[in-house]
C-alpha cells in the first residue's frame, strides 16, 4: 500500500474537524434552548460523547481494527461504567425523593 499523499491526509482530517466544530456550535446553541428538566444535560453530554467518539475513532485511529488499543479503550470504558454505576446507585438510593426533581 502506498503511503497517503499530503493532500489526502489533509482532506480526510479536515472533514473530521469540520464535523467537530459543527457539533460544538450545535451544543452551544442548544444550551440556550429550554429542553425540560433533564433535557439540556442529556443533550449536552450526548453531543460531548459524539465529539469524543469522532476523536477516538478517527484521530486516535480506533477504527483501524488493531486489537490491543481497542482492548485498552474498552477496559477504560468498562471500569468507568463500574465506577459510575456502583457509586451513583448507592448515592441516589440515599437521597430524599424530592431532591431528584431536577429544575
Amino acid at each position: 500500500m502506498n503511503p497517503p499523499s499530503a493532500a489526502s491526509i489533509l482532506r480526510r482530517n479536515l472533514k473530521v474537524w469540520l464535523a467537530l466544530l459543527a457539533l460544538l456550535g450545535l451544543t452551544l446553541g442548544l444550551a440556550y434552548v429550554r429542553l425540560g428538566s433533564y433535557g439540556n444535560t442529556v443533550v449536552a453530554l450526548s453531543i460531548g460523547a459524539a465529539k469524543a467518539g469522532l476523536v477516538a475513532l478517527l484521530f486516535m485511529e480506533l477504527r483501524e481494527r488493531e486489537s490491543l488499543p481497542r482492548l485498552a479503550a474498552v477496559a477504560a470504558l468498562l471500569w468507568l461504567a463500574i465506577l459510575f454505576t456502583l457509586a451513583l446507585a448507592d448515592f441516589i438510593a440515599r437521597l430524599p425523593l424530592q431532591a431528584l426533581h431536577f429544575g
Partner: protein
Amino acid sequence: MSAILREPWPDLERERGAARFGMWVFLASEALFFGALILAYTANRVLHVQSFALAARETNIIYGTVNTAILLTSSLTMAVAAEAARANLRRLALGGLLLTLVLACAFLAVKGLEYAEDLREQLWPGAHFRLTDPPARIFFGFYWTMTAVHALHVSAGIGVIGWLAWRGWRRQSALCASPAPNAIALYWHLVDVIWIFLYPLLYLPGRA
C-alpha cells in the same frame, strides 16, 4: 534507524505497536483519574441541581467556547502531524507539530485571561467569594480543580510535543521512523477528549 529501534523489539513495526498499546494503557488510567473527578462532580450536582446551574452561569461562555474550538483544532493539526510522519512527509509533520504547539499555548493564554477575570469577579471560593449560595462554592471548587489539572496536562503536552518537534527538526528519522509521534498524538487527543467533557459540565449548565 538503529537509534530508533530499541531492545527488546525485533522490528520497528512491533516497537510501534508496543508504544501505541503502552500509551493506551496510560490513557485508560488517565480516563479513570478524570472519571473519578467527574463522578464527584456528578454526585454533588445531583444534590444541588439549581445551585450548580446558577453557579455555572457565572463562568465565561466565550472563553470556554473559544478554548474548545482551539483544542479541537489542535487535535486536527496533531492528527495530521502524526499521519504525515508515518507517510514520511517531514515538512507537513513539522508544520503540524508547530501549529499544535501554537494552539496549545493559545489555549493556556485564553485560560490565563479567563482565570484573571474569574479572580476579578471574586469567583475563587475563598473568604471573598461573591456568590452567597453555599453549594456555589462546591461548583467553583470543581471548576478550579478540573480546569487546573487539565491545564497541567496541556502544559505536559506542550513539553513533549516541543521535544518531538525539536528532535524531528534536528533529524529526519526521529520523526518519520519513530513510534513517538503516534504515541504523543494519542496523549494529545485524550487531553482534548477530557476537555470535550469538561466543557458541557462546567460552562453549559444553567444557560437556558
